[in-house]
C-alpha cells in the first residue's frame, strides 16, 4: 500500500503510449478548420496513473479517444509499444462517464462482451466474468439488468467490463463525475487499492477529469491542458505517498498549486491574443478585407445571476477569496466555477491571480448598485466585446433595426464549430437581453432594437476600460 506509483516506472525508452505532435482539427463547411488539439506530445510509461486535467471544452476527451484509437488525429502519430495504432486499440479499455452499459444485457452479459468479441469460449468467459464481478464486489447481481442497479453499482459493472479483457492501458473518461459524492469516494479508493496492490493486470491508467482534488488524490502524474486549442501547459509529478489524506497540508498545498495552474494559465497570453485579435476583426469588417480572418475570442458561458451571486459573496468576505475554497463551499467543480470567474474577468468586475479572486473597483460598484445600475454597467462592458460590437453595429445601421439570428450564427461559424457558434450566440443573447442592449424574438428568431435602444446608442464608439 505504501508504494508510490512512480516506483514502478522503468526506463524511458519503452513507453507504453507515445504521442508525437498529435493535432486534431474539426472541418468547417468553409474550410476554415477549428483546431481542438494542438501539437500534443506525451509519453505514458508502464506503472503510471495519469490524470488529464483541463477546463471543459479543452479537448481532453478527444485526446483520450485518440489514444484509445476511437478517433484519429488530423496530424501526428500515436504509437503503442512503438507501433502506430490502427483502429480501436485492443490492449486498451475504456470506462465511460455515462457508464455506457447496454440496458438489454444483464450484468454478466455486459461484462462478458469484450470476451465475446475476442471469441473466448463461453464456459471460459463465464468463469472470467464471474471472477471479475466478485472482484468489484457485485456478486449476486450477475443476472440483474443495469436499470435495477444504483449509479455506483453501474459504474462497477463498467469497470468490470473494461477489466475483463485484461487491458494494459485503462482509460477513464470522468468515471466518477456522474456519481454522488460518497459513492464516488468509495469507488475511487477501491479502484486505487486494486491498482496499488496490483490485483489487476493493468500497466497504466489514464483518467480524464475536471476534479482537481480527484486528480491529486489518485494520480501520480498530472497533466494540465489549456483550451482553444488544447496544449499541454503543465506536466507535474504527484509524489504524495499513499494512502493520501485530503486534510494533510501537503495535499492541500498540491491542490492549491494545481488550482493556480488551471485557473491562471490564460492570464497573460490570452489577454494579449484577445487585444491583438479584437482590433483586426473590427478593421476587417470595416474595410471588408477578406484576406485576414482573425479568430474571435469565445465568450465564457457565465450566467449573470451566478455572477452576481458570486461577486456578492466575495464582496461580503472582504473583496477577495480563494477560488478552491469557494468552489468547495458552493459545491461547484472548477469546471462550473471557471465560466463565472472568466465572465467576471471579461467584464472587469474581478481579477483572478494565484488562484484567488479579487473584486475590482468596478466590481464593487456592480455589487453596490441596484438592478438598473448593474444593467447599465454590464451594457458598457459588453460594448467592448467584439461579438457585441458586431451585433450592435449591424442593428444600429440597419434601417429597421432588426436582423435574423442566422446572420450572426453564420458570422460565428467562421470562428467556431457549429455547436459552439450556437452556444456562443445563445450566451450573447442572454447577456444582451439582461443588459437591455437589444431584444430577441424567439418566434421570428430576430435580434432587434426598440426605440429606447436606438436612441441610446447612436454609434458603437469604443469604450475605454
Amino acid at each position: 500500500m505504501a508504494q508510490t506509483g512512480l516506483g514502478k516506472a522503468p526506463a524511458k525508452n519503452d513507453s507504453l503510449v507515445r504521442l508525437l505532435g498529435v493535432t486534431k482539427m474539426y472541418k468547417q463547411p468553409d474550410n476554415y478548420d477549428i483546431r481542438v488539439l494542438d501539437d500534443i506530445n506525451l509519453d505514458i510509461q508502464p506503472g503510471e496513473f495519469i490524470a488529464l486535467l483541463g477546463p471543459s471544452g479543452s479537448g481532453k476527451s478527444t485526446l483520450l479517444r485518440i489514444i484509445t484509437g476511437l478517433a484519429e488525429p488530423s496530424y501526428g502519430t500515436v504509437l503503442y509499444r512503438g507501433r502506430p495504432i490502427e483502429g480501436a486499440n485492443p490492449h486498451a479499455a475504456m470506462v465511460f462517464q455515462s457508464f455506457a452499459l447496454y440496458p438489454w444485457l444483464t450484468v454478466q452479459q455486459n461484462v462478458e462482451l469484450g470476451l465475446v468479441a475476442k471469441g473466448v469460449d463461453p464456459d471460459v468467459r463465464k468463469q472470467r466474468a464471474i471472477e471479475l464481478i466478485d472482484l468489484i464486489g457485485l456478486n449476486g447481481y450477475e443476472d440483474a439488468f443495469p436499470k435495477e442497479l444504483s449509479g455506483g453499482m453501474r459504474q462497477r459493472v463498467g469497470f468490470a467490463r473494461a477489466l475483463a479483457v485484461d487491458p494494459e492501458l485503462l482509460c477513464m473518461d470522468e468515471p466518477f463525475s456522474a456519481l454522488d459524492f460518497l459513492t464516488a469516494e468509495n469507488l475511487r479508493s477501491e479502484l486505487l487499492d486494486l491498482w496499488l496492490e496490483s490485483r489487476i493486470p493493468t500497466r497504466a491508467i489514464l483518467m480524464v477529469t475536471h476534479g482537481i482534488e480527484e486528480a491529486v488524490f489518485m494520480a501520480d502524474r498530472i497533466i494540465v491542458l489549456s483550451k482553444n486549442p488544447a496544449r499541454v501547459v503543465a506536466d507535474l509529478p504527484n509524489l504524495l505517498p499513499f494512502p493520501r489524506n485530503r486534510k494533510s497540508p501537503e495535499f492541500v498545498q498540491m491542490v492549491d498549486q494545481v488550482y493556480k495552474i488551471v485557473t491562471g494559465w490564460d492570464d497573460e497570453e490570452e489577454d494579449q491574443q484577445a487585444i491583438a485579435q479584437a482590433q483586426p476583426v473590427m478593421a476587417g469588417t470595416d474595410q471588408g478585407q477578406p484576406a485576414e480572418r482573425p479568430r474571435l475570442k469565445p465568450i465564457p458561458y457565465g450566467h449573470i445571476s451566478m455572477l452576481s451571486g458570486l461577486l456578492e459573496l466575495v464582496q461580503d468576505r472582504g473583496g477577495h477569496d480563494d477560488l478552491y475554497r469557494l468552489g468547495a463551499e458552493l459545491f461547484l467543480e472548477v469546471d462550473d466555477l471557471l465560466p463565472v470567474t472568466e465572465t467576471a474577468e471579461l467584464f472587469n468586475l474581478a481579477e483572478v491571480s494565484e488562484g484567488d479572486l479579487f473584486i475590482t473597483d468596478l466590481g464593487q460598484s456592480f455589487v453596490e448598485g441596484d438592478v438598473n445600475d448593474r444593467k447599465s454597467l454590464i451594457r458598457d462592458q459588453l460594448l467592448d466585446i467584439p461579438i457585441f460590437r458586431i451585433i450592435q453595429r449591424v442593428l444600429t445601421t440597419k434601417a429597421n433595426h432588426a436582423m435574423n439570428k442566422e446572420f450572426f450564427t453564420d458570422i460565428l461559424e467562421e470562428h467556431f464549430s457549429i455547436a459552439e457558434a450556437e452556444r456562443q450566440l445563445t450566451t450573447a443573447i442572454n447577456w444582451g437581453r439582461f443588459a437591455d442592449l437589444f431584444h430577441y424574438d424567439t418566434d421570428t428568431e430576430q435580434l432587434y432594437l426598440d426605440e429606447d435602444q436606438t436612441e441610446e446608442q447612436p454609434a458603437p464608439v469604443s469604450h475605454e476600460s
Partner: protein
Amino acid sequence: MADSRERPGVGLADLLVGASILALISIVIAWATHAHPYTAESGRISLVWWRLPLDAAYSWLRMAAAYALSLVFTLVYAYVAAFNRRAERILIPLLDILQSIPVLSFLPVVLLAFIALFPGSRIGVNLAAIILIFTGQVWNMVFAVYHGFITIPRDLKESALSLNLSPWQRFRTMELPYAMVGLVWNSMMSWAGGWFFLMACEMFSLGNHAYQLQGLGSYLQTAANQGRWSAELAGLFTLVLLIVLMDQLIWRPLLAWADKFKMEMVESADRPRSTVLRVLRRSLILEWMGKRIWVPLTEWSDRLFSRTLPRMREQPAVVSITGLIRWLITAAVVVIIVTALEGAVRLLSHLSGGQIGLVFLATMATLSRVLVALLISVIWTVPVGVFIGLNRRWAARLTPVTQIAASVPATALFPGLVAILIHMHGGLNTASVLLMVLGTQWYILFNVIAGASAIPEDLREATRMFRLSRMKTWTTLILPAIAPFLITGLITAAGGAWNASIVAEYVSFHNHVYTAFGVGSIIAKSSQTKGFTVLLTATGMLALTVVLINRLIWRRLYDKATERYSVS
C-alpha cells in the same frame, strides 16, 4: 415521418429520386404490355361457414409472407442507409417519397405485371398481393429502424468499438436491440395497415375480369355482392377474432419483451406486461432451447461472420475491388434509369393536352374527397379524443373498445357499405368519402388522445385557477397542446385517405361497374383498357401531388407545431 434533419422543400435528390420512380413505373408498364394476353383468374368463392378458418389462414399466410419480406428489406435498407454515408444521401429521400405514394394506385399495374409473369396460374395474383402489402407496410418500419440506428448514443458506439466487437456482433448486441422498440411498434402498425391492403388485393375487378384469391377479403366481398348479411357478419367476426388473437398472442408479448430494449435507466411504472410472455419465459423447454440452440447459434454466427465480413479497416486491395463493384453498380443503375426514362418519354409522347387536363381535374376531385374526409374525422375526433384523454376513468373503459373498432380495416367494411349506399343518389361519392373516414379517423383519434393525456396537470390547474372560460381554455391550452399530435395524425390519415380513394372510386357490384370521377377510377379504367399513357400520367400525378402536399404543407406545419407548441 418528419425527420428533423430534413428541411422542408424539394431538393436535387428528390428530383433524381422522382425521375427514377417514374422510370421504374414505366418499366413495369412496359413489362405488363409486352406480355401474353392474360387470362382472368377467377375462382368461385364459397360462402360456406366452415371455409372461414381456411380463408383466414390463407389471408394470414399472405400477410406473414409480406411481413417477412418487409422485415428483411427493412434491416438491409436501414443498415445501408445508416452506415453508408454515400448511400444515405439517395436512400433517405427515396424512402421519404416512396412512403408518401399511395400504394394502391399501383395495384392494377402490379397485378397485370405479375399475371403476365405467371400466365394461367394463381401464383401471379398471389405474388402481386404480397408485393402490394409489402409496399404498403415496409416504409414506416424502415424509417423506425433507420432512426434507431442513427440515434444510438455515442458512448454505446464507442464502447462497442473499444471492446473490439465485430460488425456482426455490434449489429446483434447493439444496433438491432437499440432499434428494437421502434421495430416492434412499427411492425404492429404495419400489420394493421397490411390488413387494409389485403382486403383490397384479394378481390379486384378490372372490367369484367375479377381477380380473386381465396381469403377473408374475397369472402367479405362475395358475401356483400350476394347480399348474404349473415355470412358478411361471420366474416367480419372472424377477421376481428384473428386480429384480437394476433394482438394477444404475438404483439403484446413482443411489446412486453421489447421493453427491455428501452434506453432508460429507471424502470418506468407502467411498463407493458403480458401473461403469455411470462408463461413463455418460465417454460423449461424455451430455456433449454436458449441454452442448446440459441447460444451455439450466436457463437457460430460470430465465427462465420468474423470470417466472411470484412473487418473495420479494409485493405487497399479490397478497397479497389469494392470501388470497382460500386462503379459497376452505379453504371448499371444509370443505364437502367436512362432506358426506362426513354420508355417513359415515349409513352408520354402520345399524351394529349386534354388527357393531362382530365387527369389533373380527376386528381383535384380526389383531393377534395380526401379533404372532406379529413374534415369530418377532425370534427368528431377532436372533442371525443380530448374528452377521453383528459378523463382517465373513461380512457380505461373506452380504449379497448376503440382499439377493436380501429383494428377492423376499412376495406373490409367497404363491400357492405357499397351494397347499402350504391342505389342512393351520389351513392359511390358518399360511400367513398365514408370509406376514407372509416380508414383515417382512428389515426387522428389516437393521436388526439395521446396529445390530450400529455397535457401537464399543472397547466390544467392553472387554467382552472384563472377561471378561464371553456372557450378560452380550448384556445389557450388544449388546441395548442394537441397541435403537434393532431398534425401527426392528419399526416398519417391523409396517406390512408389517398389509398382508400383508389379502392373507393371504382367498384364492381352485381356485375355492374360503378365509378366516381377521380384519379383512382382513371387509374383503374386505364389499366383495364390498356391506356398506359394515361395510367402512367395518373400514377405519376397522384404521387407528385401527395409528395408535394407532404413536403410543402404537412411537414412545415409539423415543424412549426413541434417547435412552438411542444409541452415539455
